[in-house]
């Protein structure tokens, strides 16, 4: 097991592996979900990811160079670039980008709609595994990871820390089953805004099955606080395709409402509405500068992690470009 992470989450990633190239070695989510231990699952994903990373050309940068500055008395002589001094006989200070510990908060939706799954595992299991993977990954990197699970109210909150045993706490909290009824982002996001004063990375994992108006409002308030937000929109393939064939009474797992639906008739309308919802969410995220990634639960988690890193990298570039 490697002790040093090949990449840093603080800004740039060393590159991006093409998913097609690595698909062969990816772990099938169904197989993954058959591992009962969440921590083990996370470890399997992260290690598999690292295996992939070793083959990628973007690893090896541990310190991010920023610029040169002329030495002025009082500067730390350790950062003098002696080679440049040798070439130019001038003292330059080599400046690096500030390297701080990342504070990452994982916001995991545990509402009852997340307990739906057509692949043998639920969206909640998938989302928890994803959260666990990210937490494990970040923990290994030495970043502080916090967790907030919610449904219509906040269920559990663990502040972002990096200390022994914290990861274990996070895993335990994530292993608790989804019991909430509705999805309500307002309360958890308000809580986060209230408690996290320092700029942090907020990773929201949810199926976002809530009216678009309320969603937009909640995301706007979150983005306005200056946090960096990444959203993983987790949806089941059955929700995405609506591939039912038999007319049946559909029961809303959140409200218990029953509806007789003939899929052959209702599919088109459903897909239209779903796509409109998704597009609206995506558009809102784009407008707010929020990272958005839609994940079907059949998508391997490594790819999700990869997506995450790429997202970070792109954002880093974007930030850099802005700064430059």
């Amino acid at each position: 097991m490697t002790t040093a992470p090949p990449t840093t989450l603080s800004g740039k990633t060393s590159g991006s592996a093409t998913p097609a190239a690595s698909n062969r070695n990816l772990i099938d989510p169904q197989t993954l979900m058959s591992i009962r231990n969440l921590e083990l699952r996370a470890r399997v994903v992260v290690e598999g990811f690292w295996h992939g990373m070793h083959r990628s050309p973007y690893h090896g940068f541990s310190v991010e160079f920023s610029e040169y500055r002329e030495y002025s008395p009082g500067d730390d002589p350790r950062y003098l670039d002696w080679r440049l001094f040798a070439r130019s006989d001038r003292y330059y200070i080599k400046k690096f980008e500030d390297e701080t510990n990342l504070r990452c908060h994982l916001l995991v939706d545990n509402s009852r709609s997340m307990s739906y799954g057509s692949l043998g595992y639920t969206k909640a299991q998938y989302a928890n595994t994803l959260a666990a993977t990210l937490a494990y990954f970040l923990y290994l990197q030495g970043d502080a990871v916090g967790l907030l699970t919610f449904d219509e109210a906040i269920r559990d909150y663990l502040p972002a820390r990096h200390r022994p045993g914290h990861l274990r706490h996070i895993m335990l909290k994530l292993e608790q089953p989804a019991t909430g009824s509705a999805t309500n982002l307002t309360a958890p996001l308000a809580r986060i805004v209230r408690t996290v004063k320092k700029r942090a990375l907020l990773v929201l994992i949810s199926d976002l099955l809530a009216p678009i108006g309320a969603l937009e409002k909640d995301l706007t308030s979150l983005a306005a606080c200056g946090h960096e937000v990444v959203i993983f929109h987790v949806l089941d393939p059955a929700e995405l395709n609506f591939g039912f064939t038999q007319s049946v009474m559909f029961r809303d797992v959140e409200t218990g409402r029953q509806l007789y639906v003939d899929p052959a008739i209702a599919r088109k309308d459903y897909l239209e509405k779903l796509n409109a919802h998704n597009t609206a969410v995506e558009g809102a995220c784009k407008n707010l500068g929020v990272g958005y990634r839609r994940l079907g639960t059949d998508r391997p988690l490594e790819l999700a992690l990869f997506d995450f890193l790429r997202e970070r990298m792109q954002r880093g570039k974007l930030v850099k470009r802005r700064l430059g």
Partner: protein
Amino acid sequence: MSFLAPLFLLGAVTIALPVFFHLIRRSSKENLPFSSLIFLQPTPPRMTKRSRLEHLLLLLLRCLVICLLALGFSRPFLQKPMLAPQAADSGRKVILLLDRSASMRRAGLWEAALGRAEATLRQTGPGDQVAVYSFDNQVRPLIGFDQWAALPASERVPVTTRRLAEIQPGWAATQLGRALTRAAEAFAEGDQLRRDSGSRRIVLVTDLQEGARLDGLQGYEWPKGIEVQVEVVSPRKTSNAGIQWLAETADSTASEADTGPRLRVSNSANSQRESFQLRWNGVAGALPTDVYVPPGQNRIVAAPKLPPNVTGEQLVLSGDDDDFDNTVYLLPPKAEQIKVLYLGDEKTTDPNQPLFYLQRAFQATRQQNVVIAPHPTTTPLLPTELAATRLVLAADTLPAEQLAALQSFMTNGGTVWYVLKTNAQPASLGQLAGMAPALTVTDVAAPNYAMLSQIAFEHPLFASFADNRYNDFTKIHFWKYRRLDLRQFPGAHVLAKFDNGDPAFLEIPRGAGRLLVLTSGWQPADSQLALSSKFVPLLYAALELAGGIKGQITQGEAGEPVDLSGARVPGQSFPLVVTKPDGTTTTLAAGETRFTGTDLPGIYSVAAGGLPVRFAVNLAGAESRTAPLPLDELERLGVPMKPRAVDPAQQLEQKRRLHDTELESQQKLWRWLTLAALVLLLVETLVASRITNRTTVPLEGTL
């Protein structure tokens, strides 16, 4: 196959329901959990195409169950030919009872009753035997069974209708019970004669008023097989009040002279009015009186005041709808003058003589005024004097011509009370008693006193003392009396004896009359009789025995017989001639005193040689109670009622329905059909459960 309730067959239409449900592809009752329905719209149930009808066997079973149930509910039965209806017309016996009481005089009732009667007659067939009776307080046949049968079939109804049109409602009361029993008996008589037994029915056409008397039915066992069909005619207006004269009776406390005649005004229970007016008819200057009577109640009122020295005989009530019972006839009260002859030469003021006490014994009452007419023995007795009396008292030795006159008086029914106040009267006594003149009469002075004993209380003279409270004669002491030898009076009846066995009171029949002999006087020298409380009743009893007190005729009831014996002059056998209010006269046969021709209300007068006696005949009070009588009352008395006659077609239809109901209840096919439906339901359940088991698949895996 026929059906008792064919409308239930429409229930078979509901087989459309299972077909409909089978066509709907609502796949299962199971539901599929889904994350959120916010993007879903409910789909209306979709009909499959005809070719996609599923589970045909199940559908067939369900349709069959519904059909069987519908069939069962419609009560099917196998039709059998109805037995030919009995020749109902052939043996039917009908008695039509037509009420012609006074209450039928109300507006429109009689016409309606005739209409009903005609309708009933028209419903009879040629084979029917019909009799028509009219009734009020009597039942009068109009057409008998024999007369009906004797008429040609086509003539029966017209002839009977003509007869009916000839009669009019009378003034008599309604004796409904009597009429019904009479009609039922008429059936029985006919049956005894002919021994035929068809259906028997009495059709009663009446206003069925509350005052109809049903007491004839009390205790009468109604014959089996006779049913009564009541055709009630109802008046258009129901307010009716009646008036009756409460004629004074002997025990009335107040005299009519003080209060005037008293009247009972009654208002029928279904009346709409409460205020009426009472006035004298044909009397000028008399003011009317207002009378307030709530419906269903009576009020006793005094007649309006008459002007001085004016008499009225007709009072009229006004203010109600029907006036048949609004007139009452009344006569002012009149005391009867009764003359009692006393033969003797005594002074009326001498308290030692019997006459003194006799004159004070009779007090004038409102009913009668008894006058004692003393007649000296020296004056000859005229036949006219004797004709005006029924009782002659004598206490002296009488001259021969007076004795002869008294003898003929007794022979004609007169009564002579002979008082032996001295022992010097044996000749007169012997002559009066029809014995030899040599009678031995001895004066007896009782040692202390004598008392009456062995009194014949069964005799009319002493009957009023028969009660234990009054039969104590021991306080009447006799000091002196005259002893008679009973052997000399072979036909004499000893009414009382003295306590030593000597006769005290004798009755000797003489022709149609009698001779009463008191062997002592009632003056204080002889006895205490005149001073005792028994004296006056004894004199009245003697007067009554002699026929001196006659029943006074005051008021009769229309339709009811009146006893006119009071009008007959004693000792005369003139026939009674009754003049009716309409001027017609009826002569009663000699000796007949019962007058039955009171068919009109009004003032009647009867004469029998002497002064005419007048009496009023009024409507029966019950006739004024015109509220309808509930039909249950007849049923309660055991009269089986039949509903109103229906149309023959309807009757046939009713019979057919009854026949069908009977057939259906015998066959009870619905039981088998229900059983079959239950079996099919069982099969359906089995089939359905098998199909369900076969097709159950996990729904969540149907993606």
